[in-house]
């Protein structure tokens, strides 16, 4: 079987200790925020660490706080978020995005901080050491070529976080703390569109909490495309947040696409197509079409890249139809099929 490499483990008791431990050797230390992705990656030897710093014992990194401006501790488990009544009321789109992550078992262990910092994914990278040797490696791990686009100077591994596009769309922020101090940045600035260096935080910074903005009259949703509604990572995610004026005209629009590049990508043309307009058959369709060019879907996930690009328009339109109360035209594959029945 695949076995973990040797590493040392320290359970941090508070944020200060976590920062101090991380600052000792930021390159060879990793934070263990749930481990549902990190540990399998370490088994396959494509993420490495000499020391893991566990954050589970850090009490003030857990829990959901606040009323109008809610704060979610980075170590809050995904299943805690999906069960939180206040979050369900204020940000149902956020809850849906979190609900769509992996499987119930992994959501009880995985955390929101871990999901935001999730390593980028690629079919040439999320493989065993032997498999990667058989292709001579790739530039993200022990190689010098990106097999997704062999003439490309960059790595095209994709951002596979479901929470990120939604949190970008609603304008959430994250708190980053290090021994050097702390700062609060918009979630979209947490990401860099590069498969290898995909996080805009320093190696010594700990993501401690997610700050949600006041809801006001924002409507937000998340549409996820994947093969199986039961478990898969996204091959396309659409986070959309809108505010409407007195006549139903769109006064504020933020649309982010996940899993089509190494960071959540903003779709400004789609937003522009909506601003000042009411959500009608024509405007949502135009906004969907405008998103097609943003997606950099390449052949490194499930499904074909051409179809994923085509689906970008359909999925953006689908999210906007939902927000505008228009009848659905496309179905998300996770629509429940109903309980299995047997009759003999």
């Amino acid at each position, binding site marked *: *079987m695949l076995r973990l490499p040797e590493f040392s483990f320290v359970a941090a008791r508070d944020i200060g200790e976590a920062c101090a431990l991380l600052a000792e050797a930021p390159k060879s230390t990793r934070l263990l925020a749930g481990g549902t992705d990190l540990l399998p990656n370490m088994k396959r030897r494509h993420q490495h660490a000499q020391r893991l710093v566990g954050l589970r014992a850090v009490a003030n990194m857990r829990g959901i706080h606040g009323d109008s401006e809610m704060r979610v501790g980075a170590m809050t488990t995904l299943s805690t978020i999906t069960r939180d009544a206040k979050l369900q009321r204020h940000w149902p789109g956020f809850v849906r995005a979190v609900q769509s992550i992996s499987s119930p078992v992994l959501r009880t262990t995985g955390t929101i901080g871990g999901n935001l910092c999730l390593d980028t994914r690629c*079919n040439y990278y999320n493989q065993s050491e*032997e498999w990667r040797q*058989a292709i001579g490696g790739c530039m993200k791990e022990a190689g010098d070529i990106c097999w997704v686009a062999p003439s490309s100077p960059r790595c095209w591994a994709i951002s596979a976080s479901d929470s990120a596009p939604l949190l970008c769309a609603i304008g959430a922020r994250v708190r980053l703390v290090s021994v050097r101090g702390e700062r609060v940045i918009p979630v979209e600035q947490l990401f860099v569109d590069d498969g290898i260096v995909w996080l805009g935080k320093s190696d010594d910074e700990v993501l401690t909490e997610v700050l949600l903005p006041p809801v006001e009259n924002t409507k937000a949703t998340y549409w996820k495309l994947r093969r199986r509604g039961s478990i898969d990572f996204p091959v396309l995610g659409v986070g959309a947040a809108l505010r409407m004026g007195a006549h139903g005209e769109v006064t504020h629009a933020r649309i982010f696409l996940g899993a089509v590049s190494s960071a959540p990508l903003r779709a400004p043309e789609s937003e522009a197509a909506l601003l000042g307009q009411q959500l009608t058959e024509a405007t949502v369709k135009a906004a969907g079409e405008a998103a097609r060019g943003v997606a950099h879907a390449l052949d490194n996930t499930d499904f*074909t890249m051409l*179809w994923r690009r085509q689906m970008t328009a*359909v999925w953006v339109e689908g999210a906007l139809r939902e927000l505008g109360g228009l009848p659905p035209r496309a179905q998300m594959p996770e629509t429940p099929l109903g309980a*299995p029945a*047997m*009759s003999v």
Partner: protein
Amino acid sequence: MADTNKRKLIGTSFRRVDAVGKVSGRTQFADDLSFPRMVFMKLLRSPLPHAQIVSIDTSAAERAPGVVGVLTGSDVPVPFGILPVSHDEHALCPDKVRFVGDPVAAVAALTEEQAQAALALVRVEWKQLDTIADYDDALDASKDLIHTYGDDHNFHKKVSLRFGDPEAGFKQADLVLEDTMFFDGNTHLPLEQHATIAVPEGDGRVAVWSSTQTPHYLHKALTKVLGLPAPWIRVIALTNGGGFGGKSDPFNHEIAAAKMALNLGRPVKITLTREEVFQCHRGRHPTLMSIRTGFRKDGSMTAQHLKTLLDGGAYGSYGVASTYYTGALQTVTYNLPHYQFDGARVWTNKPPCGPKRGHGTPQPRFALEVQLDKAAHALGLDPAAMRLKQLQPKDSITANWLRVGSMGLGPCIEAVMRGSKWLERRNAMPPGRGLGIACSSYLSGAGLPINWNHMPHSGVQLKLDRSGGVAVFCGQTEIGQGSDSILAACVAEILGISLQEIRLCVADTDLTPVDLGSYSSRVTLMMGNAAVQAAERAREILARAAAEELKLPGANIVFADGRVFDAADPARGMSFAAAVQAAESRYGTIGTTGSYTPPRAPGRYRGAGVGPSPAYSYSACIVEVDVDPATGIVRVPDVWIAHDVGRALNPTLVAGQVEGSIYMGIGEALMEESAFRRLPEKLSSALVHKFPNMLEYKSPTFLDMPRVHTSIIEEPDANGPFGAKEVGQGPLLPVMPAVSNAIFHALGVRMDQVPIHPWMVFKALEEKRRGGVGRYGPKAFPAVDYGASLDVPTPAEGGDGKARNADDIGVRGGTMSETQRQSQEKPC
């Protein structure tokens, strides 16, 4: 085998004998075993798809921490394979590697981590050969050969059989359809990875505990490669955590572990990683098909010409049989008077394909059932009614000389039509919704053994204890299908005792009579018949002793409820244990045996050995789909399936097999595929499985399952124990064509290929919107010279089962040469 008494167990949903052990986690699978002084083995596998081994240096690995033993190809030079005609595998490759994952060295160490670390110290110098990635490469005569045997170049096997006069049949047709279709490969995905522990027994003997479906064949392969007398080798198959055909071959890791254990004098364990399970493979052959069928106006078939081209991967495995199976069972569901079958299997540098659930028959079944749907549409017929009108009659012989006994396909079709409200709902579906039907049939065990001989295919031995306990010995292997429970129930039923009185000893080549293995859906029928025979012989002995004891000569002695008594006066009797004591007092220790040999099949032509079975199961399936035209995404809310199992020995176990088949069928229809990465040729020779892991190889989870409505149809077969036929494989087959047919009904686009990915539906819809036909599938079938056909007159033509021109054609290639075969053991 008269079925006169009321059955107590048979026909009821009695609890599986292994249920408590499994749900409480106490069942021991191979990887759960541990022995004193055990060491761990890992295999160094080829990183290249096709290469010569120039040199191999293991000296650094031998010196590595914890390492106790290293083997290379020269330590295990004798080839092996499941079929006698293709002993083309080695435990460790001696001279060349044929796919990424082919093993070249084995390292044993005190821990698995140490063995893994030492693998990196083995130095191999390679000389790369052409990468044969697909049909195009395999058919390119300028490319390097993967094997030096076979029919020609990179063709492993070619077959051409003609039954009757297909051209005359096509002339009688009102409609002739010709389609090219493709069924992609997929893998078994058992939850349990293969594991083996080899334990030396001190006097040169070795015991091999393994997760295998075929301990008998593993025993034969070990005997050959290790060069030991067969009685020195003991193979014990543990309960498999799923097999589906993926554990039916003897594997290199099993043989290497045994050799290592003998060398070291200590137990050696190997448990494969999931990726290595993908490399063992033996899964569904990717199969390109050309199917041409003539139809009369009423939908009945006049003739069919089927051509198949199988991508076999790197080794023979069951491939010769697989090739024949892509043609053999086309005739057993609907009457087909004239039939030509051309089949061929090519080598490629990929993990070997073999027998996955349905073994070679789901692919042509898909082609046939989709084409029938097209014919019904073209002729304006209801596809269900059209099938009902042309069923192969029961107790008949098909054009290719298969003997059909019981035949319950008609009631199956009627059951799913009723269940789905086919007639009421089919013409009133909402947009995007569709209903599709397909049918199938499968063997209840192959009529001929893998190694040709006249001996039984299954044996059962009983030992009756004076305490009233009955020990049952049989070589059969429990792979999750419930064969242990059926074995115990057949004996308990005949002897009128409860399952608690039965002690099973199974799948142990030292202790149990041979059963050929858990493959080809053979166990219930063959083992069941052997068990019934052994139990009836025991009952006869006990009845005689009991009648004497009770002073009731000539009485009708009945065995029920743990008692042995007079039918006319049930109060006059004794306990079962007392009857055993009475018998033992008179005759000494009581033991009986039973065995089963299938009836001789009527076909006498070369190739007639593939297809015959003592009984055929039948299934009909209706799938409802909900297709989103904006995306091409297909959802399956409901599946209705009816399966003719002859007699349900345990209805819950039957339903479980049916539902498991639906799960696997939905996976094959909509997502599962053995996709490979060929890197750009200018940059690399690499050819790797695209996603050899359980996350990215897509298979439905419980939550992705449709609602399944199962009907069990019982058309008892005279050849089955209590009338039973198979259920493990047949119900899978109709699912894939039924999904394709339902998509056509929903949106008018034809999917001539599986798996059906959403982009394929989307593309076909776009094509249809632009005025095209709206089809997704292969464009053309390549030119393959199948050679001259064996010309076999059909029963209707007065044939005798032999080919007319056998002497002109003679023995074709496709098998290992005589010199290669001389090193093989005598068949048994």
